[in-house]
């Protein structure tokens, strides 16, 4: 089963202190971080995102199209990064998400936040529950 783990932004990543800070140290930590995830053999793709102040929201509503500039107010509702991971069960996905967050904390001490674990809609989703 394929899951998307969505990492909610925290105050630091929104302030651009985290992955966007272009110091060698941060990039080295990012590299190591990705390497450790890849070593588990479960990560298909994943990226960290720039702060929402550099992002836009594009909205369709009735006939109206609006483009809204970031930053977006509720940091908790802002996506900070994502990973697409392959697991055998939901339990494994949750365990994987916990490890994913542990890794955040290991490479960026003091990190705290929330992730959302969502199963990707695929043929397995229509199969009977195992």
């Amino acid at each position, binding site marked *: 089963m394929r899951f998307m783990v969505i990492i909610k932004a925290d105050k630091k990543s929104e302030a651009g202190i985290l992955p966007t800070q272009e110091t060698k140290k941060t990039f080295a930590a990012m590299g190591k971080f990705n*390497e*450790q995830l*890849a*070593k*588990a*053999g*479960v990560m*298909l*793709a994943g990226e960290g995102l720039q702060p929402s102040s550099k992002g836009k929201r594009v909205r369709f509503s009735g006939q109206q199209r609006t483009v809204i500039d970031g930053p977006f107010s509720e940091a908790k509702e802002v996506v900070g990064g994502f990973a*697409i991971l*392959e697991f*055998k*069960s*939901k*339990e*494994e996905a*949750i*365990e*994987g998400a916990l*490890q994913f967050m*542990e890794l955040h904390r290991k490479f960026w001490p003091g990190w705290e936040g929330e992730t959302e674990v969502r199963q990707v809609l*695929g*043929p397995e989703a229509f*199969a009977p529950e*195992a």
Partner: protein
Amino acid sequence: MTTAHPHSAIDAVWRIESARIIAGLTRIVRDVGLAEELAQDALVAALEQWPESGIPDNPGAWLMATAKHRAIDMFRRNKLLERKHEELGRELKTQQESAVADFDIANDDDIGDDLLRLVFISCHPVLSTEARVALTLRLLGGLTTEEIARAFLVPEPTVAQRIVRAKRTLTEAHVPFEVPRGPELAGRLSSVLEVIYLVFNEGYSATAGDDWMRPALCEDALRLGRILAELAPNEPEVHGLVALMEIQASRAHARTGPAGEPILLLEQDRGRWDHMLIRRGLAALERAEELGGALGPYALQAAIAACHARAGTAAETDWKRIAALYDVLSRLMPSPVVELNRAVAVAMAFGPAAGLELADALASEPSLKAYHLLPSVRADFLLKLGRLTEARAEFERAASLTRNARERELLLNRAGACAAQARPQ
């Protein structure tokens, strides 16, 4: 806040952590069988304690610490024995001292190295192929004996015995816990790749409607391959194998129709191919080629698979390139099956007559005597050449050789179509 059911959560922790724990323990106790027993003991302790105490923050570290304590207890017990059996004891004492020292120096890189050593020991040539497969899935895939048995359609005690015997063989042969170096590496690595690809194919050749464990083997093999690619990033054939598996797996959902009937590659709905896996596969192939491994057997097969993956429609397939790649592959690892595939590619690239010539050369090949694809491929060429009577006979012969009922039906239909076409108006 809700938490998952503790037992399934523990299963999940185990599947994710067990290989690293067993690998780390093997380095300490220098015996893979003993390491696995210690890890299992820790798992039993978790099953007893976690439902009450809750799952610890770092469950992997908890399991490792528990297993290490068991190891220390065991060394202590053995040390007491030492007074009675002094000659044996001296060796154990050194082991204990090095074990205690080992506890402190392990870091992430060591864990990677330990895992790689565990891969090589599980696929050691001293073991039979079946034993290598079972041990690899058990130690590195975190599968239970029951799951392995179900996946390979053999009784559980058979698998259990294979594993017990494999561990004993490794102990008796004093197989060192190391990554082979120098000239030994190539041979040992190809044994590892063979095991992983065998697991993949076991899952891939299973058809829909089977036990779900069989297709899941593809995922296990892919995961092992991806881990290996991280552990041995400079080995081109590892990336070649990963590329091949990613691209083949990308077609998994398009290979069967709603009723479970097989759908041939050229007739598959390419929209159902998994483009994320294709992208990963192409990237892995590129990596293999960058490392100078374009001519490795896995990389070549991946390159052929990539030709199909890159084609937006079946008609856009670069058959000339596929034929050329098969040409290289057939020289590298000559086999009648590769030759038959080459015949198909040549026919697509240069016309049915050229393909038929290659297929006819295989007619006397003893290993293909009962292989339904040879007459089926010949029939296809003959049909395209308008030699309908011969085509019909070959389709019928292919139908009589296949063991798959759906395929037989399809072949007989095609034979019937030849007959109808041949009949004068």
